[in-house]
């Protein structure tokens, strides 16, 4: 039974790649279109019937591990410092008045729109450059590392960069960026692009192992250059990975304090940098801080929701192969 299953899997895999090996012909696409339409109809029927309720309920129950801390966060964000207590009842109680004054003040203290703008520029630029550069490198290394020792070495060289503690790089980088006149936002973006390279290359090249080589060979035989094949075939197929990389990279850059702090030395504020004002040496205004964190949370969650859609619509490319 077990062997059979594995065999089946491999057969399925082979089928998929064989299909792509065949020269693309108009007829085939028409036929496939029809098949897909039928499948779609069938899928619609079955999707309606088979909502997996036990799993849904379980997931909703599991959500309490997220909702409960989130509830506490929201409550604290609305309360005044004088409403803070050390009792369980106190932390769970609703604020005396529902007022947005904390949010307003938090926005003022952090110079919200300005800091948000800087954070957005840094994050979006980092994500865009990362997707462009890292996917290319991930592609090359994903395809070559098994065949060529040199590329395998490059692969491990890049991946190992993941384990360099930032603290050791910090001082040398401060000096280096200032010598190169990169002690500004551009420098921060370049550094992020380098810092996230190991993780993203790992993700991209890992993803590529599930994408058959035959897919690009077809285009290559047609006379497209490697580069064009990459752009027109491989890059779109990696869409779910682009979305994943975008989320992970954006998340890391969005919340990071140290890099902009030491590289820009306070000349420009990002949101997390501005949020440091809520903590002084001998005290913290948790209420304002929490309000501010909730505000900073919204853009990145929105970004995540958009990217999630991309991951899902990427099923296509995965299934087409």
């Amino acid at each position, binding site marked *: 039974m077990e062997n059979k*299953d594995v065999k089946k899997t491999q057969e399925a895999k082979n089928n998929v790649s064989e299909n792509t090996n065949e020269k693309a012909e108009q007829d085939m696409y028409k036929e496939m279109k029809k098949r897909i339409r039928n499948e779609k109809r069938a899928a619609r029927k079955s999707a309606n019937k088979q909502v997996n309720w036990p799993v849904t309920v379980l997931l*909703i129950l599991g959500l309490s591990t997220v909702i409960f801390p989130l509830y506490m966060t929201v409550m604290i964000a609305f309360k005044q410092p004088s409403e803070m207590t050390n009792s369980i009842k106190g932390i769970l109680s609703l604020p005396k008045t529902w007022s947005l004054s904390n949010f307003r003040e938090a926005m003022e203290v952090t110079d919200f729109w300005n800091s948000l703008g800087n954070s957005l520029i840094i994050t979006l630029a980092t994500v865009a450059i990362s997707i462009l550069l890292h996917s290319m490198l991930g592609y090359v290394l994903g395809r070559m590392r098994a065949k060529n020792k040199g590329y395998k070495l490059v692969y491990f060289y890049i991946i190992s960069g993941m384990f360099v503690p930032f603290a050791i790089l910090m001082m040398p980088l401060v000096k280096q960026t200032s010598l190169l006149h990169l002690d500004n936002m551009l420098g921060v973006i370049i550094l992020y692009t380098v810092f996230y390279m190991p993780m993203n290359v790992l993700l991209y090249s890992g993803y590529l192992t599930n994408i058959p080589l035959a897919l690009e060979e077809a285009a*290559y035989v047609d006379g497209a250059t490697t580069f064009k094949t990459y752009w027109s075939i491989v890059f779109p197929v990696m869409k779910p990975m682009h979305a994943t990389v975008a989320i992970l990279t954006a998340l890391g850059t969005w919340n990071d304090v140290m890099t902009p702090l030491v590289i820009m030395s306070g000349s420009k504020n990002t949101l997390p940098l501005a949020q440091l004002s809520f903590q002084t040496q001998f005290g913290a205004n948790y209420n304002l801080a929490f309000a501010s964190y909730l505000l900073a949370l919204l853009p990145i969650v929105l970004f995540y929701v958009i990217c999630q859609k991309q*991951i899902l619509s990427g099923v296509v490319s995965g299934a087409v192969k």
Partner: protein
Amino acid sequence: MEEKNLESMEENKDMLAEEHVSEEETPKKPRRRLDRKQTFMLITIPIVFLFFLFNTLPLLQGVMYSFTNFRGYGDFDWVGLRNYADLFTDVRAGKSYLFTFRLALVATIVTNVLSLALALGLNGKIKFKSTLRGFYFVPNVLGALVVGYIFSYIFTYIVPAFSKLLGGEGVSMLASSKWAWVAIMIVCAWQAIAMNTIIYISGLQTVPEDVYEAGAIDGATGWSSFKHLTFPLILPFFSINLVLCMKNFLMVFDQIVAMTSGGPAQSTESISYLIYKNGMSGGQFGFQSANAVLFFVVIVVISVMQMSFTNKREEQL
């Protein structure tokens, strides 16, 4: 959801078809084209150079500082191998290695099991899919200050109250040098699950539906379908997640600062915490550079072993 996927699948096919047609119609001019190898070199060299410039070069400087008593600024003296000799006799550093690796190992297992289950659930045929996915993502976004405060509260007030109800002593985990690491582990896992789930979900997208259909014909459902069909296919994502988990947990820092500041009784000092706190805020930049170099070497050795292991498994399947 399914419907939409299929729809865009059609679009993609159409586009592919069109392109082929247009290329056949316009005859190509003969031109010199870069072969595959050259293109690959052209992509690799500049990017690797960038990486070298902003990662390896400063690292080499850091390695240099590990032979000095540099404090991060000002002048310094060369001290030879003193920092390394100190490191191997430093009880505190030794304890931090033990703590960090124990934490990383347990947190990696917990995180992967839970996030894989979560990914399967969220990828299944469930209601409120987007909302659920959205909420499960939140832990990853909350800043360290919030997470630290909330979980300190939970561990200091709420958990002991519950344990008292159940007849326990009602002592906070964070106050016990035996259990504080478990509290840290829980928070680390809580935050990391979101990210690992995303990666597993995108991995699950590469599993073609027909694999399941083929499996279903053979009667493979539930656990056996997962074990023999799904899991082998998402194995690359499993190894990605293992590496990323190890990376995140071995370099744990924020959670420590936010929750225990290394205590109680120095039982939760992680390696990164020591490197940062003593190297940057303190005046031990040289010594902690040596620590960072050692840490780096240890992790690289471990991950090379780990990766060659998982690669072998991938090849076997």
